[in-house]
């Protein structure tokens, strides 16, 4: 097990180094001289030169990379080129917002996907199963921003159960925090719920027809225990989908952040891209990769627990 964990950690670190390095060079190639975007159009050439010197932009690219990387490995991502505040501080303000929404959406997808997936897997062709198929088509066809707007119209404007915009930190009020992330999370989770349920339902049906299940039943195990065995064998595909969705939602939350005016990492990525604030972009990339590595690591652990054969790979 320790070898398994060590292997995953090393591959995660390699992924982190490769992706952030690639982002560094690609961002510099794409942005060009950032001073116009950062200082505005009234800046004099002397002020632009001063900013370039301050941020080290005149240094050779490899020197810049060396400096950035040597600091980054110690957790220091430098300061934003826009306001010279530490990148880590600015990202630390944003990450809880996006994480709150994405984790809550993933939890909703996991719990509701499990319930619906098992229920439809137990009764294939039933009313719920047909409903799931219809929901899959409809929810995948609906654009995320439209779903968000419908939720806002019903639950924020008409019923006033939830706020239409904004994020409340749990430090201030746990209840208000939950209210502020419910609609964004639900709008992100709707598609994920049916996807997880579909995977689970298909896996359930596949496993339920295997010989070992028949043997379990023949040995007189209760329906509940058999179902537990089937579920454990059917879950890897659904878990993988769930992990992929979490990673996808981290990057794809930007639409929801805009519609609900949430100060998350999606909107920070957008604003940093617009003005060419490369340190912020690099910090965001590093944080996102860390999350991807952690989620994949957890997924491997869970899959290893569910299926011991995975640990031997």
């Amino acid at each position, binding site marked *: 097990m320790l070898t398994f964990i060590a292997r995953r950690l090393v591959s995660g670190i390699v992924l982190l180094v490769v992706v952030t390095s690639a982002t560094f060079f690609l961002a510099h190639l794409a942005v060009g001289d950032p001073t116009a975007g950062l200082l505005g*159009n009234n*800046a004099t050439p002397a002020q632009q030169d001063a900013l370039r010197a301050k941020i080290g932009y005149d240094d050779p690219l490899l020197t810049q990379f060396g400096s950035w990387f040597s600091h980054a490995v110690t957790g220091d991502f430098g300061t934003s080129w826009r306001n010279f505040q530490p990148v880590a501080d600015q990202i630390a*303000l944003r990450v809880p917002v996006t994480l709150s929404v994405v984790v809550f959406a993933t939890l909703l997808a996991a719990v509701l996907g499990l319930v619906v997936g098992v229920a439809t897997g137990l009764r294939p062709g039933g009313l719920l199963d047909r409903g799931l198929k219809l929901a899959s088509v409809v929810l995948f066809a609906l654009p995320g921003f439209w779903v968000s707007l419908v939720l806002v119209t019903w639950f924020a404007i008409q019923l006033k159960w939830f706020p*239409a915009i904004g994020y409340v930190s749990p430090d201030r009020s746990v209840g208000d925090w939950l209210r502020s992330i419910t609609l964004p999370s639900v709008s992100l989770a709707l598609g994920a719920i049916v996807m997880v349920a579909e995977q689970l339902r298909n896996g359930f049906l596949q496993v339920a027809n295997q010989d070992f299940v028949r043997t379990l039943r023949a040995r007189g195990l209760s329906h509940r225990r058999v179902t537990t065995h089937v579920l454990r064998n059917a879950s890897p595909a659904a878990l993988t989908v769930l992990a992929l969705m979490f990673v996808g939602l981290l990057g794809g939350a930007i639409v929801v952040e*805009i519609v609900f005016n949430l*100060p998350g990492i999606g909107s920070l990525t957008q604003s940093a891209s*617009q003005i060419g604030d490369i340190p912020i972009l690099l910090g965001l990339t590093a944080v996102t990769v860390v999350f991807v590595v952690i989620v994949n690591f957890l997924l491997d652990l869970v899959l290893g627990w569910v299926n011991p054969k995975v640990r031997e790979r």
Partner: protein
Amino acid sequence: MTRTLTAALVAVAAAAALAGCTSSSGDTGGGGAGADELKAGVFLDVTSWDPANADIGFDGPYLSAVYDPLVALDKDAKPVPALATSWEWSADRLTLTMKLRDGVTFDDGQKFDATAAVANLQHLKSGVRSGQAYLNVASVGAKGADSVEIKLSKRDDALLYFMGLGRSWMVSPAAIQANSLAGGPAGSGPYTYDKAASQPQSQYVFTKKQNHWDSGTYPFPTVRLFPITDQTASFNAMLSGQLNVQFANAANKPKAQENGWNIAQKASSWVGVQFADRTGSQVKALGDQRVRQAIALAFDAAGILKAVGNDAGTVTDQLWPVHSQIYDKALSTKYQNDKAKAKQLLADAGYPNGFTVKMPMSPIFAAWQPAANQTFGELGIKVEWQDMAMPDYQKNAPTYPMFLAVIAMDGNDMATLTDQVTSAQWYNPNPSVDAFPEVKALVQQAERAEPGPAQSDLLKQLNTKLVDLAWWDVWYQADNIYFSVKGITVTPVTGMMFPTLRFIQRG
């Protein structure tokens, strides 16, 4: 971000919001005449708490909460006293002496006096963004403990206006020295920034100081400012009662009326084609007045205003604001859409089959590109669009002979002359005044004239001349629109993309 880019962003957001959908129903919630809180949805986040690095555009409400200015503006953009209680120009208008308010203290305990004012003015003069307002300031010095003297290298009749617009916020000199303003404000303004209750980039909370010298101007005990760029999200927040004032979109005006909200609007920016090459040095055709006039005649400005600008604005060919005394309503029909006449003018100029021109294009201007393509195509003018990002657009547009523009306007007539005609800006890279003797003569006369009717008369003559020369191809002046619930009024000011807090009142 500059006011110009901001103006373009606003225009694009307005166009994009046409595609948004939202409910028209909902009560006004959280607002109403008795509201203790002002909850305003501002289009953009504060760019910096350091006034030297801040934008005039949408920073006004944020900075006006925590800072006092030396000079403020009234609703007609006329400079009025604030921390400077009075001022006096020397006879040659090259020295401005300001008498300062006594008994003002910054939040960190520092006293506001002449030394503090001088430190601030020097800081603002050297600022990357604020420095533009002080280009003609040669030196600043204290004159006793309660007066400052500003010496100019060149007469500048727009200086007080720019100071009032958002270029004279006074901050604690200790904060300037410590370079600590990036972390938070240090002012003497009517409100205290409640850092604990605020969520930077999402919500800023300010609580009123009861003993502020101008307390009566600020009626709300608490102010909450929400930076919301998405117009649909902002409107939804109004409908749900989370906001009681909103930087609004014209597309939502009928729904605002249904809800009984107040609607305020005023000209904020001009939209059209900027001719950077009026002398024809890059594209010979543009040096011919008839070609520029032909382009102006060919565009269906009313149609573009309706389709892209939500009909929020005024079709005109002038860029002194429609409410300015320089604006001449009679001139606004000079380039009414007439394609036959446009083609005739092009033929008379020797370009019956048009010509070829390169123009920059950025996503921010994409909403106007189809109209431009169609119109230029009808004239036989072949446009080679060069795609680029917005920062590159600002950097590169000046190198093109003409380009699409959304440019913020000023509420001061002399500032309009400076910003739009005589000074080199990215959106006016080649003022080319020297190449047009009649224009040059009128500019010089206006700059030398005594402020008042004589100066205004000269500016009117200049406006007529510039329209005749098709100096620009202005399609329309776009309005900024603000919704507020009953009991709160907003007074827009041209030059401010979002008015400072003194313009948001109960009533």
